[in-house]
């Protein structure tokens, strides 16, 4: 850890990310405008300091569907700040919604997509890779071939397919209602586990023949126990590094899906969606620069920070892997 502390860039990135996560997590309690409140008369406004609106809880249309803590935070906010709200510091979009509050609320979703999807990929990838590496031999060969084959499958079909099937299931009356967002996470996660599986397998292969593993095997420990007690902790550092490096990829992939119109659904927002929507604003006739600049900055800086953090962690945790 000492090495990590010495890396100033990574430290700055870490604190920046922590601040961002806190800011996004606490957005509902802070005096920002409601992200979905449109005012067509106040559309396309450049950044300004003062708000012409009074905040009201009624502007959060699906309040009852919100997660309880969010609702609670909004109610707290109402009692602290009343109808005060900060101005559109980042301008308004074409429906007159405050861009800054959209970015903050979008950050909640973007970060969550990145984190949850990565965790899903982690879960699948680590168990698959560890198992494959541990079993070794023929099983390893077969399992890795499967990964190779999956690697060659164009994922866009998988995404369109899964997103459609999810939708179909929602419509069953009285049936299980599946949150599209949750499945969206799962879909992306399921695509990204392949790399993780390969990496973990490689690590496991190299640790496997260490003496202490052989020893516990000889003592009759079960496969699951050996995996959990000896192998997984050993690949932990690699996992941590990959976590920080996979989150940005997942977030970029979400942006790409948004560009194709397959991202999150309105009124939910994500950075990718904001950036893709803002793309129309970069045109020769009239440049609404704030439409692209701020979402782009939010996305870019976060990914930048995550990348640097990942590099720093790698340097610190595993000098062997240095800068790979």
């Amino acid at each position, binding site marked *: 850890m000492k090495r990590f502390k010495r890396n100033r860039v990574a430290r700055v990135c870490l604190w920046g990310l922590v601040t961002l996560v806190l800011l996004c997590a606490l957005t509902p309690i802070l005096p920002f405008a409601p992200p979905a409140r449109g005012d067509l008369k106040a559309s396309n406004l450049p950044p300004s300091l003062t708000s012409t609106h009074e905040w009201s809880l009624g502007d959060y249309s699906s309040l009852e569907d919100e997660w309880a803590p969010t609702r609670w935070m909004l109610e707290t906010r109402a009692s602290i700040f009343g109808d005060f709200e900060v101005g559109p510091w980042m301008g308004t979009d074409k429906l007159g919604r405050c861009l800054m509050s959209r970015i903050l609320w979008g950050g909640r979703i973007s970060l969550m997509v990145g984190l949850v999807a990565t965790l899903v990929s982690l879960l699948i990838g680590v168990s698959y890779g560890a198992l494959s590496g541990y079993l070794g031999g023929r099983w390893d060969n077969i399992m890795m*071939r499967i990964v*190779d*084959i999956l*690697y*060659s*499958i*164009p*994922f*866009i*079909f*998988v995404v*369109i*397919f899964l997103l*459609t*099937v999810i939708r*179909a299931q929602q419509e069953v009356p009285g049936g299980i209602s599946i949150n599209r967002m949750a499945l969206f996470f799962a879909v992306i996660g399921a695509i990204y586990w*392949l*790399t993780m599986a*390969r*990496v973990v*397998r*490689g*690590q496991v*292969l*190299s640790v496997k023949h260490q003496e202490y593993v052989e020893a516990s095997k000889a003592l009759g420990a079960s496969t699951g126990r050996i995996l959990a007690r000896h192998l997984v902790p050993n690949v932990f550092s690699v996992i941590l590094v*990959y976590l920080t*490096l996979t989150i*940005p*990829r997942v977030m*970029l*992939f979400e*942006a*790409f899906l948004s*560009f*194709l119109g397959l991202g999150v659904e309105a009124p939910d927002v994500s950075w*990718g969606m904001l*950036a*893709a929507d803002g*793309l129309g604003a*970069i045109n*020769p006739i009239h*440049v609404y620069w704030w439409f*692209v600049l701020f979402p*782009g900055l939010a*996305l*870019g*800086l976060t*990914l*930048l920070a995550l*990348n*640097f953090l990942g590099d720093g962690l790698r340097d610190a945790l595993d000098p*062997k*892997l*240095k*800068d*790979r």
Partner: protein
Amino acid sequence: MQKGAEEEAQVDPPEEVESGEGAASLGDQEPEGFTFFSDHPLLTFLLKRLGWMALTLWIVFTLSFFLMRSIPGGPFDQEQNLSAEVLAKYKAAFYLDKPLAEQYLLHLRNALTGDLGPSYKMADYTVNEIMAAGIPKSLALGVIALIFALTLGITAGLLSAIKRGGFLDRSLMTVATIGIALPNFVIAGILILLFVIWIPIFPAATWGDYKHLFLPAFCLGAPFAAYVARLTRTGMLDVLSQDYIRTARAKGLSDAQVLVRHALKGGLLPVISFLGPAIAGILTGSLVVEKIFQIPGLGTHFVQAAINRDYTLAMGCVLLYTTLVYVMNLLVDIGYTIIDPRVKLE
């Protein structure tokens, strides 16, 4: 979208561990490494890999076939002006009314003979024609993007490796990381505004001469250039700390000579292993860029076919993509053994 690309780059370390182990023993027996056609290993290796490829293609074919048809909406269902009676006849004409298993066998048989059928949505063309028209364009775009990625990436990587820790190193690596951190549609939008509208030196879009390819190729290559830069830098740093470099220096070779004669070979290994997925990623990952710059390549067909439920064209694209990824990885594996004789083919 540099999805495939990064992954491979990251996968590198463990695989190297393995190959390193195997290489040691092989290196003892056959110091000259493997040679073209004088031995059998390459041939058996190729045959084995081709076998796997056939299996992969078949699995991909089957999966895609049933995936596509399980998505709501068929190729003719989505036209507003079609009456039910006409729709039924069109479905019959393209065997879409047959049981799924029968359709599957039919399409599989045709695909085996290399006939992917007519496109459902561009009725004047067969899938083979559409892909034949799209491949050269995607290829041209991809190759130029690759040239960008390699020249910019390797230069930047070398510079930062030499000036390690300096200002140049840091700024180059920051730029490289930004290249990875921004979605390429944002990069494309900014470049168009800068170099098409404000300083009109490049055409806005469409297919034409080399000028039309510059911006899209740059946008496509940028994230890959960033990766190449990082890989080159680390590769070089690794090599520069090795004993034989120090020996070379001690022998009195100049820095430049050391760099070119000795360090470059080893330092670029990670870049080589990244090439396979990068090429595949560039060729197929161009769909955003192709859309923004109106390049009539495969990427556009790929997305449109999926959205239009153009089953045959979509299948063609899927198979082509799979083949590309596979062949590129194969080439890289072979290339790797040539450059680094310690690595054997398995």
